[in-house]
């Protein structure tokens, strides 16, 4: 469904992604783990054309999308839930969700949009309670739900999630991860999940990639990565001693 080949992305002089390649099959949940500054966010920003790649190829459903502007990417079915939620704080919860369907408004899909709004409220009942409230007054977890809801309003085929668990209580994280799982099961949404919480992410995902200073160093089935000693040491917080003396 999605295939990246030899992607190189720069922030000014900083070489953020070095020859990164990655692929996702339809309906897969794939996670991308790595330390701070490894290039996880850069990879998502490259995919959604916020910081386009300087070289390399991106194919989505067989079509080259590397040079398209962000709005065309959304139109093709890739929605990006950015790091730090980035909801439109002074706008109401409902306005935020409606804007998620911005491109569909221009195609006169009003009825379908209303239905999807209902669907999001079913998914996150707390958003319905707060629909008239300014998004900036929501708690962190609610803002994360709103950010995901906003992305879903575009009816994406591929959802890019950047650190959805950041700064949230474990219970809220569980709720959000459960929603991601349901989305895949019920709608067949493909998910690329970027996480620092590697353990939870690998438990949810089918496959995983490990990124280190802009390079892909490992890839594999999620359960195998969970057992991988290098991954355990670097990303799962287990002590060297604990691993080697087992």
């Amino acid at each position, binding site marked *: 469904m999605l295939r990246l080949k030899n992607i190189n992305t720069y922030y000014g002089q900083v070489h953020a992604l070095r020859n990164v390649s990655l692929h996702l099959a339809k309906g897969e949940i794939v996670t991308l783990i790595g330390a701070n500054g490894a290039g996880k966010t850069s990879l998502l920003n490259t995919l*959604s*054309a*916020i910081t386009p790649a300087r070289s390399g190829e991106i194919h989505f459903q067989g079509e080259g999308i590397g040079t398209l*502007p*962000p*709005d065309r990417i*959304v*139109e093709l079915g890739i*929605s*990006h839930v*950015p790091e730090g939620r*980035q*909801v*439109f*704080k*002074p*706008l109401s919860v409902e*306005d935020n969700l*409606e*804007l*998620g369907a*911005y*491109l569909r*408004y221009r195609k006169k899909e009003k009825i379908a949009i209303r239905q999807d709004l209902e669907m999001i409220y079913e998914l996150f009942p707390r958003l319905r309670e707060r629909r008239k409230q*300014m998004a*900036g*007054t*929501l*708690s*962190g977890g609610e*803002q994360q739900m709103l950010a995901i809801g*906003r*992305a879903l*309003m*575009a009816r994406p085929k591929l959802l890019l999630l950047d650190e959805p668990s950041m700064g949230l209580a474990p219970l809220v994280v569980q709720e959000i991860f459960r929603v991601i799982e349901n989305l895949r099961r019920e709608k067949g949404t493909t998910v690329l999940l970027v996480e620092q919480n590697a353990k939870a992410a690998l438990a949810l995902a089918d496959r995983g990639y490990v990124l280190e200073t802009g390079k892909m160093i490992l890839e594999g089935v999620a359960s195998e990565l969970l057992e991988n000693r290098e991954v355990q040491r670097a990303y799962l917080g287990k002590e060297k001693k604990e691993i080697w003396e087992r």
Partner: protein
Amino acid sequence: MDLLPQLTQYAFSGLSTGAIYALIGLGFAIIYNSTGIINFAQGEFVMLGGVLTHFFLMVLKFPLVVSMAVAILVATAIGVAFERLTIRPLKRPTPLSMVIITIGGSIFIRGVAMLIWGKDTHSLPPFSGNEPLVIAGATVMPQHLWIFGLTLLVIAANKYFFYYTISGKAMRACSYNRTAASLVGIDVRRMVFLSFAISSAMGAMAGIIIAPLTMTAYDVGVMLGLKGFCAAIIGGMSSGFGTVLGGLLLGLLESLGAGLISSGYKDAIAFIILLLILFIRPQGLFSKAQTERV
């Protein structure tokens, strides 16, 4: 003359010029919010509104309403072309380079207007007669009422657009968080384009409705533009209520100052207020503390 009717008189004329400042100020605020630019060419669209209406009405002999409509359309087209030709081609726009461009654009538009229509001042006929009305002891020109009515209408339309239509909401989203706006598929450049269209239309409208009272010429845009800027600063660059109040307050103070102290200080008052606000409350008089959680 008693003080009370005199004050009412000043209040009326102050509020109606204030309404004009509010319209111009809103134009500043809308562009500022969508692009981060202070568009110093904003005043020139005010001028274009008046001068173009005069041209269509007096030279081409169109009816008044048609002349106004065509003038607004032409001014809007010029505003949009201005954005396309000067702002959009910038590869790495910095606020400073964009401000300088708008100042250059303003001088250019003014110069061309002078070449085409000359340096004379022109007047427009009032929209409905010259017979003054007496309200609460003050004489009021019908044109004042037109100004109030039309300003109110524009502000209401503005409010409706920004709060109840998807394009308006998208423009607001864009001004709060550009990256997130791109991520939901909003074409930021289209929003910038729209903001220039709306601002130049509003500026032209302001220029037309004030022209019967103050006359119009190629250079009226400078002072009106600065007053509008002042209104927007008082309002904290909000594209809503704050700037409207800022405009009305400015008009009122100007008119009272001119009437009670000396008319020579009329323009000075606006700029003293501008400086005071910038020194003491640069976030504007009416901006409230934001409640926000991260």
